[in-house]
């Protein structure tokens, strides 16, 4: 069942109604049943339900075993079982054919494999749990229903956010929460509506042009390519963050807070900063379980750089088994490294001169995570830090306090534009792979051609021919700006609850009307559902 089908709101309403009719103790069981119903709704998943069940059972047993065992070798063996099971399934379904063709050449016989939806998400989520148990960050979960629900919780099973057991599972019991919280219901419902608006009104209309361009229906040229790349960045943001809004809003309707996945990424003033704000749950996962495992930044510069690159390379491959994703990961890694390396080298030299130790966790590619035991506090802390970051002046501006206010403002926006273009430039590989462009590398060379009046006119004509005219064009521009403006104020669900009735209700109606009049229905799945 997709979020953007008519079946989902009906299913969701029924689940929510039942949820609030049941005593707290039975609610996790209901959510588990609803999650499996949601998962098995898709015929493709029915045949592969064993993968989800297997991942749940094996990692739960691994967690229990790790909680009891003291022998380090036995603990390592259990960890290995968990890793092999989670990564093995992921490798078999997603990468077997890719690596087979890459290494086996023409003699390789590809298998017809259809991966279960959400495989990348629940595999990482359950693997993270096993690693946390191995590290002793928290005691293993004994309640099988709570654990199974953690792995399969339906709002986030297909597209994340990738959760942490110590953050999500304590919320299932509902302890410390009122029986019903109207703010959660109202705010959650609004956030879902907000997500639908971003996905079905903004992203799906932007996709028309982007898809037409990369599939070759629009003549290639520098301005058109740049436009396609920029619009793809916006499309991807609205699509993925819209999906996360629906997931987070849906979970909030049940009184459960999920991790935030985005923090105004296009307000970042450096490329590194952008990656701290984009798909935070995945980058956080890689940072915690890969980057730190490889040694993080507590190592020589060359190894630190390699660790850094490893995160981006694996992140690229996580998105899809294709060479373009690999190149995309490398390109992003190189750009971030190019930004970070001078700082690191400067610190190395200064520490060598002053005899100080190089900074460790603070130089990780993503923001430092709050202490593991924080649980509920972590969300609040994350929100706080997120909001603080949104409102705080960017680092570059802080440093240049000599500049007058207007100059700082202009510089920040200039930096944001540069970062946005940088991001769009990298995502050309991503878009080319997603829409199966014939010559992904050629898209980059095209960028340099056709910069004349005819090329600009062609870009404009292509835009108009793909629906960017009349009322729709206005809705897209105003809608996009409104989304960025509102999201820069912090959590949307909290923001709407702070508004007056006379602002709230027209906004509800406006969003609902925009969905009905301009929404794209039943035509495309969420992009990140593919991964």
């Amino acid at each position, binding site marked *: 069942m997709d979020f953007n089908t*008519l079946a989902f709101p009906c299913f969701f309403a029924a689940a929510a109604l039942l949820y*609030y009719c049941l005593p707290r103790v039975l609610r996790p069981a209901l959510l588990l049943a609803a999650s499996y119903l949601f998962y098995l709704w898709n015929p493709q998943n029915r045949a592969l339900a064993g993968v989800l069940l297997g991942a749940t059972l094996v990692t739960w047993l691994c967690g229990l075993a790790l909680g009891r065992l003291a022998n380090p070798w036995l603990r390592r063996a259990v960890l290995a079982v968990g890793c092999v099971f989670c990564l093995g399934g992921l490798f078999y379904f997603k990468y077997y054919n890719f690596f087979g063709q890459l290494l086996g050449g023409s003699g390789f016989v590809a298998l017809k494999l259809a991966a279960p939806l959400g495989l990348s998400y629940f595999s990482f989520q359950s693997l993270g749990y096993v690693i946390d148990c191995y590290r002793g960050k928290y005691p293993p979960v004994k309640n099988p229903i709570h654990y199974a629900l953690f792995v399969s919780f339906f709002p986030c099973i297909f597209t994340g956010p990738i959760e942490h057991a110590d953050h999500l599972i304590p919320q299932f019991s509902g302890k410390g929460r*009122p*029986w*019903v*919280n*109207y703010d959660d*219901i*109202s705010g959650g*419902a609004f956030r879902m509506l907000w997500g639908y608006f971003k996905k079905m009104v903004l992203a799906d209309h932007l996709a028309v042009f982007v898809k037409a361009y990369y599939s070759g229906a629009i003549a290639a040229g520098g301005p058109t390519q740049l436009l396609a790349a920029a619009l793809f960045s916006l499309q991807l943001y609205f699509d993925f963050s819209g999906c996360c809004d629906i997931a987070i809003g849906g979970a909030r309707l049940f009184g459960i807070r999920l991790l935030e996945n985005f923090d105004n990424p296009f307000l970042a003033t450096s490329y590194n900063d952008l990656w701290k704000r984009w798909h935070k749950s995945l980058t956080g996962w890689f940072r915690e379980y890969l980057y730190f495992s490889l040694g993080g930044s507590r190592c020589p510069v060359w190894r630190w750089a390699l660790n850094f690159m490893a995160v981006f390379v694996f992140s690229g491959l996580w998105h899809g088994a294709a060479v373009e994703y690999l190149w995309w990961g490398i390109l992003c890694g190189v750009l971030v490294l190019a930004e970070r390396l001078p700082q690191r080298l400067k610190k190395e030299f200064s520490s060598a001169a002053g005899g100080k130790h190089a900074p460790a966790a603070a130089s990780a590619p993503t923001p430092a995570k709050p202490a593991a035991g924080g649980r509920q506090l972590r969300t609040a802390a994350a929100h706080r830090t997120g909001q603080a970051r949104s409102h705080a002046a960017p680092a570059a501006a802080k440093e240049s306090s000599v500049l007058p206010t207007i100059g700082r403002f202009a510089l920040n926006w200039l930096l944001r534009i540069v970062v946005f273009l940088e991001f769009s430039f990298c995502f050309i590989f991503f878009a080319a792979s997603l829409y199966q462009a014939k010559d992904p590398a050629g898209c980059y060379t095209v960028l340099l051609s056709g910069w004349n009046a005819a090329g600009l006119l062609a870009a404009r004509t292509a835009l108009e021919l793909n629906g960017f005219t009349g009322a729709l064009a206005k809705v897209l521009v105003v809608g996009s700006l409104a989304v960025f403006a509102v999201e820069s104020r912090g959590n949307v669900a909290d923001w709407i609850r702070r508004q007056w009735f006379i602002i709230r209700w027209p906004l*509800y*109606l406006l969003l*609902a*009307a925009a*969905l*009905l*009049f*301009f*929404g794209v*229905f*039943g035509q495309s799945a969420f992009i990140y559902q593919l991964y």
Partner: protein
Amino acid sequence: MLKKIFRVFQFLLAPFKLALIVLPFITLMVYTNYRIDCSGLFQGDLTIRTIVELMQADKAISGFSQMDQRAVNDLYIKLMPEDQIPDTVAVGSSRVMQITNQVAGGSFYNAGVTGSDYKDVMNSFYLLEKYEKLPKRLLIGVDPWVFRSDAIDRRTDLELFEEFLSVSMGKPSDYVKPEPSDAYKFWDAAVQKYTDGKASLTTLNITDETLPALFDPAYFQGNLLHYQAQQASDSAITEDGQVIPYREVAEQELQTIDEEVKMPDGTVWYASSFRNAGLDEVLIAAMGQAGTFLYMVGYPQLETAQCALFEEFIDHVQSRGVEVVFFLSPYHPFVYQHVYHNDVADHAGFFEVEPYLRAYAAQKGIPVVGSYDPEALGLTEEDFFDGLHVRSSGIEKYFGGFDPSGSILPGTEVDGTAPLATARSPLAGD
């Protein structure tokens, strides 16, 4: 405590607030999808709907030869207002389609279709029955090929015929009555309850298959786009934005227009070149038609199974309280002469039809108007458009229409009541 009560109150109020946001949009969507209906799911195909709307507005429409006449009939009968059900409905082929409102008199609709076979005749009646628009009287244009089982027009709605056999006649057929889904039953019950049984989904032309389209936002957007495009266009347009090729024909244009026109009473007004053809041209056409003798070549004897089916059909019509009148449309004198004198054995069945029909009609007390033999009706070559189609003026010679009491009036050329004459038959001496 108060806080708790307030919290519960807020929670209970939430669904109503949600309904307040959602319901106006759902209502707008359902209304638009039903009323504009650019794919013709509820109101009928846009092209057909345009024709029917013009007919209902008493307008003549161009492009008759391109029309799906069966679909037009279906929708026309479906949308016919209860208080405008005609007293008399004519069914049959193009050979009855010159029986106009003026000829028949009273309230009349001609449901004839070009190339009508026996299945079409029965289908036309079934539409009247299915949509509960039964007239007082059914004027059946009985062409001789009605008694030929293999004389089937490619345009005939075979599925509808199977449905007729199964639903109306209770005969075994391939038709399987669809079982409505639970959703359909639920909404049907709701509509009936809301309207005190005066309306149902069926009367609103909503089927089990089309019901989801009412709640389809994509269909809503399509309807809005169609509405916008229609407002910007001078002509009626299809769902794809193509101009519908049927237009209103003014009364003064009828005499000169050189294409076939569908008249509001269901009849056809032929193209001026066809209407004004000279006797020689008519004769040439008749000679051609005599040679092929539509559907009747290779018909050595009357099919008894077809006669039985026909009789069952007539019994069924009468059982529904509808009076039956047989109408035999004459052939051009040359055609009749030709088949009378040439190769009779090959189409001997043709000459058995009229005697059989008259005998059956006499037995059942059914009036018979006309004859296949033009001589028996006193018609000459001037009364024909071609070998098969008689002019309205020719019809008026032997059929004066119905008086207000329903009695058949005599024609202008003959004295007495129908039937007036018996056809000549080369088989008479056998």
